[in-house]
């Protein structure tokens, strides 16, 4: 049976299984039925994408985190706060997944995870560690393994799909740890380890997205974007490094970005160009005390004299981050920049805390959005409306089509970037004026060229 068939089989079971929370909404639970359909659709779409990218197949990479024992132990509390428990579990799992990984709630008390890139043993080990974290966070258990069971998907003789218990973690740890390179010293730990990290960082390049300020109709800011080629395309932004807090790769990337930004700003200064450069920095770097200290020291050293040409963009802000923390971070970045902006999910509509914290603008990046333009249009309207109520400016990145361009302009977005407006550049350019009809001119030109060749 092909891996595609395996996973389609899994998905069909996903749709058919009755879900207790769909029949009766419980107190403190969100409306899971419509969210469930959206989750399944999103999962299917991403799974299709993974199947197309990973031709070697993904069988043996599907696992089940079975929390039935945990449910039995929590029992009444789980019943009472089912929605909150589910949300907490999803939050923990999501935090530990990489860009290529997937998960979805499978049955009432189990979650399916897919690790298409990891080896079989690594996938099982990661699933086990995630499940233990779930139990630890919910129960504070010292020995979480008794409350969770990890199962691996298998194909039965009759072609059906079932989940069987995975090998004990102790066996897996022994086998996997033999292949993990040792970290030699703290500096390497900070840098993410030699060898693998160096090879990865050597492949990271930068492009610059011109950003249009709609009030003045001027492109004056160039947004730095790290990119890394992979087969069939490229990764961009902080996705160029794997998500792994223990290895500090996000921090290492942020340091690389600052160094590149400093070079760029130096070049702009020497050539007397007035452009601003927007520098993305991940919340993970800022939230970790040691990393933040080192990052700020680096900013101070490298950006001296060009602070007014710098815009910091905070990315990866988690939901529910305390206002005091945001204020602290924004203040620290603001002393070394012209302004600080922050990127959110398009569904985010609560901004009072961020205005108080001193943000200049809030924005979204729709480049990788899987939502239809119709849905994006409605969400963008709410996002902009909420931001304007709090006197925050707005920006949108990744505008790829003329329809999203007109939608964003007509919604009153203040800043916009994306190749519907202009191509990305290898370096920051000089400031230039922008007319609203510019994105259409190439269309008109090709229509005219086509007309001339017809005649």
């Amino acid at each position, binding site marked *: 049976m092909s891996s595609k068939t395996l996973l389609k089989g899994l998905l069909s079971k996903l749709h058919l299984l009755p879900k207790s929370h769909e029949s009766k909404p419980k107190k403190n639970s969100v409306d899971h039925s419509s969210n469930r359909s959206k989750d399944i659709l999103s999962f299917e779409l991403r799974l299709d994408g993974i199947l197309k990218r990973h031709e070697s197949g993904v069988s043996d990479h599907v696992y089940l985190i079975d929390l039935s024992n945990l449910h039995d132990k929590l029992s009444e509390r789980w019943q009472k706060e089912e929605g909150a428990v589910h949300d907490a579990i999803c939050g923990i799992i999501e935090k530990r997944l990489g860009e290529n990984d997937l998960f979805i709630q499978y049955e009432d008390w189990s979650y399916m995870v897919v690790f298409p890139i990891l080896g079989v043993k690594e996938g099982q080990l990661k699933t086990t560690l995630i499940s233990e974290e779930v139990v630890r966070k919910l129960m504070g258990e010292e020995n979480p393994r008794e409350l969770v069971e990890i199962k691996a998907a298998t194909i039965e003789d009759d072609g059906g799909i079932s989940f069987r218990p995975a090998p004990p973690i102790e066996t897996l740890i022994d086998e996997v740890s033999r292949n993990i390179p040792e970290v030699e010293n703290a500096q390497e730990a900070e840098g993410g380890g030699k060898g693998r990290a160096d090879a990865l960082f050597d492949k990271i390049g930068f492009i610059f997205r011109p950003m249009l300020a709609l009030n003045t109709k001027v492109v004056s800011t160039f947004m730095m974007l790290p990119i890394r080629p992979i087969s069939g395309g490229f990764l961009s932004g902080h996705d160029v490094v794997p998500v792994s807090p223990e290895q500090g790769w996000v921090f290492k990337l942020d340091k690389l970005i600052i160094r590149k930004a400093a070079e760029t700003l130096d070049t702009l200064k020497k050539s007397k160009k007035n452009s601003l450069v927007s520098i993305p920095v991940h919340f993970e770097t800022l939230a970790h005390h040691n990393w933040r200290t080192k990052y700020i020291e680096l900013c101070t050293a490298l950006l001296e004299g060009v602070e007014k040409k710098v815009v910091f963009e905070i990315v990866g802000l988690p939901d529910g981050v305390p206002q005091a923390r945001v204020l602290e971070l924004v203040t620290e970045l603001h002393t070394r920049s012209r302004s600080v902006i922050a990127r959110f999910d398009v569904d985010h509509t609560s901004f009072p805390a961020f205005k108080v914290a001193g943000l200049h603008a809030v924005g979204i990046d729709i480049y990788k959005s899987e939502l*239809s*333009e*119709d849905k*994006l*249009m409605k969400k963008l309207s709410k996002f*902009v409306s909420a931001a304007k109520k709090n006197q925050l400016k707005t920006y949108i990145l990744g505008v790829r*089509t*003329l*329809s999203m*361009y*007109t*939608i964003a*302009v*007509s*919604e*009153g977005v203040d800043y916009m970037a994306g190749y519907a407006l202009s191509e990305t550049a290898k370096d920051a350019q000089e400031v230039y004026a922008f007319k*609203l*009809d510019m994105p*259409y001119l190439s*269309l*008109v030109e090709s*229509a*005219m060229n*086509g*007309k001339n060749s017809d005649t």
Partner: protein
Amino acid sequence: MLEIKKKICQSYGCVLVLGCDVEKGKVLARILIIDDEEVARFTLREILESRGHEVDDASDGLEGIAKQKAGEFDLVITDIIMPEKEGVETTIELRHEYPNLKIIAISGGGRTRNLDFLKMAEQFGADKVMAKPFSPDELLAAVNECLK
């Protein structure tokens, strides 16, 4: 039904046209309406059909261009702000493919800059542009002028 139609037209900002002074069976022109809002398509259709025009509609520029290719219309009325394929781009493509087609661009969605996009639509080939809301009489006058 009449009360429902009145409410819809009032929310759209125009006055319901009552009655029809066209000879039964006589079609004046074939008109295509392109608008992502169902209420807008319904209202415009009501106004135009009451005057004897044959009307079809599409919910975005992609569907609109496909319908124009399938069965050529005399006049296209296109909204500007639409998902998937918006009105200025649609106008450019229609104008290039169908030089004799009459195009009216309309707009009223979003918060700002609708007039900018209407001007662009005119610049790129729309015969007339109209900012919402407009009355049925204004629409019919624009249609009649285009179809002269």
